[in-house]
């Protein structure tokens, strides 16, 4: 048994959300600079120049990369030999999120009641927590600061087996086309195939955090990712929706076993910043 204090968890969560919001990850930055240098459309290049310069402005001025600092999503993979001490696991995470958003001058974007009151909770809590128990005595935390410009463009499709690869391909491509300029392209597309309604969506969310350049281990899915990325870029939506050659930076697929009658597909769209950070305790 390994003990981890809730205080340590709280501090780690706060640091992750501050990092995710303030620092662009190195793979995304490199991809955006490459997209800028390769862009032939003047308007799209103008947008990509602003976006790559924005990383510098954020760092120099102590501001988040984007004003929509997102809803806080935390994936916690908890080793089964870990015991959290000195408080509640849930409470420690929520306090960590509040520390980051209140203390770190991030925008508070959460309302308590979704339909009627829509009253701001003032500290960006509650975070959405996806906890799972894994072997070992470590805790892996993946923090995603999810803006809703892109979240609103995400979809779940309950396809059926006869749809096959082409049906899946077309559904994902159609999602990018319908999203158009709204999700702040170039986008990162996380795709979940299989499972059930909510597992597909959860896989899609997690897939958005896969590092660029890493492909699915199964060559058939890896090929599908590459084919989709090319097709999405051929849509010509482009950076900021201004046209050009870069509409997406990545398409990442995660899969799960599913029912004999089903072929669920979920597409979670992230903006070009794809803000996430991870750590292992």
């Amino acid at each position, binding site marked *: 048994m390994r003990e981890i204090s809730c205080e340590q968890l709280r501090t780690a969560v706060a640091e992750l959300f501050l990092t995710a919001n303030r620092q662009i990850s190195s793979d995304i930055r490199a991809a955006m600079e490459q997209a800028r240098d390769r862009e032939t459309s003047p308007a799209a290049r103008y947008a990509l120049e602003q976006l790559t310069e*924005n990383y510098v402005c954020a760092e120099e001025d*102590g501001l*988040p990369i984007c*004003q929509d600092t997102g809803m806080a999503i935390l994936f916690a993979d908890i080793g089964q030999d870990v015991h959290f001490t000195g408080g509640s696991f849930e409470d420690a995470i929520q306090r960590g999120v509040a520390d980051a958003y209140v203390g770190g*001058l991030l925008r508070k974007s959460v309302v308590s009641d979704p339909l009627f009151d829509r009253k701001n909770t003032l500290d960006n809590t509650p975070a959405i927590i996806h906890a799972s128990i894994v072997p070992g005595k470590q805790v892996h935390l993946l923090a995603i600061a999810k803006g809703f*410009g892109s979240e609103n463009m995400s979809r779940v499709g309950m396809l059926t087996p006869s749809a096959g690869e082409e049906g899946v391909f077309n559904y994902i491509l159609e999602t990018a086309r319908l999203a158009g300029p*709204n999700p702040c392209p170039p986008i990162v597309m996380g795709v979940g195939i299989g499972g059930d309604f909510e597992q597909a969506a959860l896989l899609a969310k997690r897939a958005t955090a896969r590092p660029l350049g890493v492909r699915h281990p199964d060559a058939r899915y890896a090929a599908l990712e590459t084919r989709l990325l090319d097709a999405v870029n051929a849509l010509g939506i482009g950076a900021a929706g201004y046209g050009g050659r870069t509409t997406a930076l990545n398409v990442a697929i995660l899969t799960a076993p599913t029912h004999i009658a089903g072929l669920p597909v979920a597409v979670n769209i992230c903006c070009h910043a794809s803000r996430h950070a991870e750590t292992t305790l």
Partner: protein
Amino acid sequence: MTPIEIRLPLDDAQIAKLRAGMTVRLSGPCYTARDAAHKRLTEMLDRGEELPIPLTGQCIYYVGPSPAPEGKPIGAAGPTSSYRMDAYAPRLLSLGLKGMIGKGARTQPVLDAICRERAVYFGAVGGAAALLARHITSSELIAFPDLQSEAIRLLTLDHFPAVVLIDALGNVFPERA
């Protein structure tokens, strides 16, 4: 791509020379409002109340900034998706609003209203929030403080970079196939 300098508030002569696809630099006063503020403005109009902001010739920026660090007028301040304001925009345009700054596409009723009222829709680059904040030199809370980041603020823009996405003739950038 040499930008055209535009002074806010907008006048008809300035609007007439703008064409979809042109890059511009906006300077002058501009109000912020997004989903919740638009809903409240519309409810006030329904009740026959006077609005907390003037509309004639004015420009609204669809933005909910992050909190301002000490010594700075505003935090990160990039545009939000404009389509969510489409349910409210035609009414504000009919009351004299001349400019909107946001990101993404608009629906047909907004396009029609922009033409009818000889207005303009500017796009700022979504996610360039820290860069855009450098082009905002002041921010003053005007109405609905309980809405937090969604409150209405009066900003002063200074060479704020934007692109004309819909002009007063109804041309749209980029043209969609």
